[in-house]
């Protein structure tokens, strides 16, 4: 059941993104820079955001490899239903 694994990975990634984008994690990066006095928070957010996008793209590339192969489980369950 590769579909279930992909679903689980997607959901896990979404939860990770939610954690990275929410308090209290964001509070950890709300520190003024020693030189400019500006907060590091926006830089952190852009980095986390870019990381999540890259992970999603990677996940999608793995999914599409599997999608090209006809899923065995799908056909098998179809057969099972026809016999029923």
């Amino acid at each position: 059941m590769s579909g279930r694994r992909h679903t689980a990975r997607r959901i896990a990634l979404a939860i990770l993104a939610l954690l990275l984008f929410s308090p209290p994690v964001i509070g950890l990066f709300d520190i003024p820079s020693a030189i400019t006095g500006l907060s590091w928070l926006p830089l952190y957010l852009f980095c986390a955001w870019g990381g999540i996008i890259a992970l999603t793209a990677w996940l999608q590339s793995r999914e599409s490899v599997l999608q090209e192969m006809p899923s065995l489980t799908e056909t098998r369950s179809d057969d099972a239903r026809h016999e029923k």
Partner: protein
Amino acid sequence: MRSNLIVLTVAFGYLALLFLIAAWADRRAAQGRSLIGSPTVYALSIAVYCTAWTFYGSVGRAASHGPSFLLIYLGPTLAMLVAPLLIRKMVRIARAQRITSIADFISARYGKRGGLGALVAAIALLGITPYIALQLKAITLGHAILTTYPTLPADTLAASPFWTDKSFWVALVLAVFIILFGTRQLDASERHEGMVAAIAVESLVKLVAFLAVGLFTTFMLYSGPSALFSRVAAQPSLAGVLSLDNVPGGQGGWLGMLVLATLAFVTLPRQFQVLVVENVDEAHLSRASWLFPLYLLLINLFVIPIALAGLLLGDAALDPDSFVLTVPLAAGLETLPLVVFIGGLSAATGMVIVETIALSTMVSNHLVMPLLLRLAHRRPARYKDTVLAGWLLGIRRIAIVLILMLGYLYHALIGETYSLVTIGLVSFAAAAQFAPAMLLGLYWRGATHAGAVVALSLGIATWAYTLLLPGFARSGWLDDTWVNEGLAGLAWLRPYALFGLEGWDIYTHALFWSLLFNLGALIGVSLFTRQSPLERTQAALFTGALQPGLWSRAVTGQGQTTQGELYQLLTRYLGLAAATRIFAQADASTQTSAHARPASPSLVARSERALAGALGTASARVLMDSVVRGETLDREDILSLLDATSQALEYSRRLEQKSHELEETSQALRAANARLRELDRLKDEFVAMVSHELRTPLTSIRAFAEILHDADTLPEAQRQRFLDVIVHESQRLSRLIDEILDLARLESGRMTLHPRRLDLVELVRRSTETIQRVLAERGVTLELDLPDVPTPVSGDPDRLEQVIINLVDNASKFAAPEHPRVRLALATTDRHVRLLVEDNGPGIAMEARELVFEKFHRLENTSLNVPPHGRPRGTGLGLPISRGIVAHLGGRLWVDDAPTLGGACLLMELPLAPDEASTT
């Protein structure tokens, strides 16, 4: 470059370009070569999410509220992460049921009721019109700044009549565009190819424009980010601008805004339109799930540099919402501000186009059409022969113009008092009210129609009370004492601090209360109300939408009607051409003679789908009910089908597991069977060989015995010789039987050895003495090469002696006929002792080296070893038995090249016995 004429020419020239692109894409689609069938175009069309509010407002929000501007884009990123799960489900439902809008979606989920659809449409109209106004305002403002800078534009705007307002004309042009490309077909669930292509291009234009101004600001105005940041460092007043303290509502406000943006992204009517209705292929979703967030990241990359540059400019930059324009303007540039203006225009027009199409579909299908149907129903005589098909497009077109004018009116009357972001967030909060009914309805079968109606009403009422009306009051439209003191002076009814909840920013506050009431009512009321049969079916179909094979089997009608009645209905509402096409697809005849025939279930289902695509599911249901008698869908059948499907899935999963186990077991069985067959074959061979081996000496014994028995005249010497042979053969026979018994014991594992510690050197000496006499008879010279020190091994002395004798005896048999020599050597390594027996015979070929350990195998082919009588020299069991014994003692026996004598060499390796101390 900034004269009014040039700006107007460029702006309207850009709009004309959109017309061309849309017309081209529509023509390509008509030729069957669609331009929009790619995930990239899909992702770009979703980017209609980035409106003028993004284009101008993000920088404004960054300048005044720090990093919170990013939340509007992080939310959609979260939503897109699960798009392949969530949106895919919606797309599949929308395709199967010909859903045309979010109002249609929600009304279809809760039993295709017209009232619920109308409620959603009304909420959308109420909540989204200000958002359209916001886009028009952005165009007006952008144009004013561009042409009047550095004068403040506000004065010039208020005083002028509407026909000098550019956004009025832009709205009119957009109305024409939308009518041309948004209402081509009656079927609103069909894709608007031209429109989507134009939107995708607009998304590219706004991205390029924003990146251009960002690159200019960062790398040309300042020579890179570090230069910009060092300028900021020189201004201590700017130090806190990007920190969390600057975010309204702090961490709570942050979370609220993130939730708001996530929900709004899937519930805004225009997002539903591009995400679900305009989706060409669900496979595009998984690529768009990172492409679209990437787009958002890119368009936000330069927000902070532009905001900082604007803040550094001070008063010359005017309002933060216009920094994108004023930063390049203040630098004295001419072309770049024009590019920025076009970017803002593209962001605004893209949003207006899609939003207006979505809203007009809702208004025509859920607000106007039900009224019209009711009217036609009440006075059948008057409307009997009217063809309503033409009306429908007319209604939609009028709705488009009205919505745009409403938006313009809102902009002209109230827009002045709101900043860009404020209006946008108010709209977001209104759209978010659809989320519980829509998302919960997708996963919880028990959500009922009554629950959804109460939830939406309560949610939107709370929204209006906590966000919309106070906003009106702030604009001076209403008396604002109730905002500060609460309704009727009751402090707990203060709209910005409802029930005394204070200290939150107004959006999080409004979102919290409205969603609390919304979700609470949906769950609470649903638990205490019942679903109608149709609603139950729809709920089951929606929640189980992703089950494979559901839709193809679920939709078969069971009601009864005639083809004539159906044909008449379709002709009336969809037109003659569409009716004929539907009949042709269902293999039904449109001939008058066939009119009395009953309509097939597939024709009924097809007709309802076609009507739903044009009129919305609720109206389609009303119309079908007017001609179809009995159940149009066997609902229980669908419910049981759904259960059967999920059961079948479960069964198949278990089946798969079982079959996997079965496969493993049968594999093991096959292997065992193969092994058994092999053993059986070996046994047969063995029996055959044993019989053969036993027969040979037996035959000669019998032959000689018979001779002795018959011929009594045999000379004594010969008689004695014959008796010798008989004795010899008998010995050989008994030896053979001993060996066979040994072998049988070895192979069955019944051979018991009695290992004890012994000195191998001594054992070798004793063994060779035993065999010395035989060797002497044969004339074989035995050379011993033994160490002087004792070599302790653990072994059964009798058996080991048997092995050694066997090896030496063997070697002596195969040694060269002239001057036969055998050499026995012992050598110890760290842990092993090696006994080597070699001869000066012909040796053993490489490929035969393992064969010699097989039972009854003899090197008979080499002519040298064939004895004069043609009888083999050994039993052929010596080596297999020796190897078995050695293996039993933990050692090994193999054939190698002879190091000194050049013939065959057998090597026995045994582990050295542990020290005396550790043995008992």
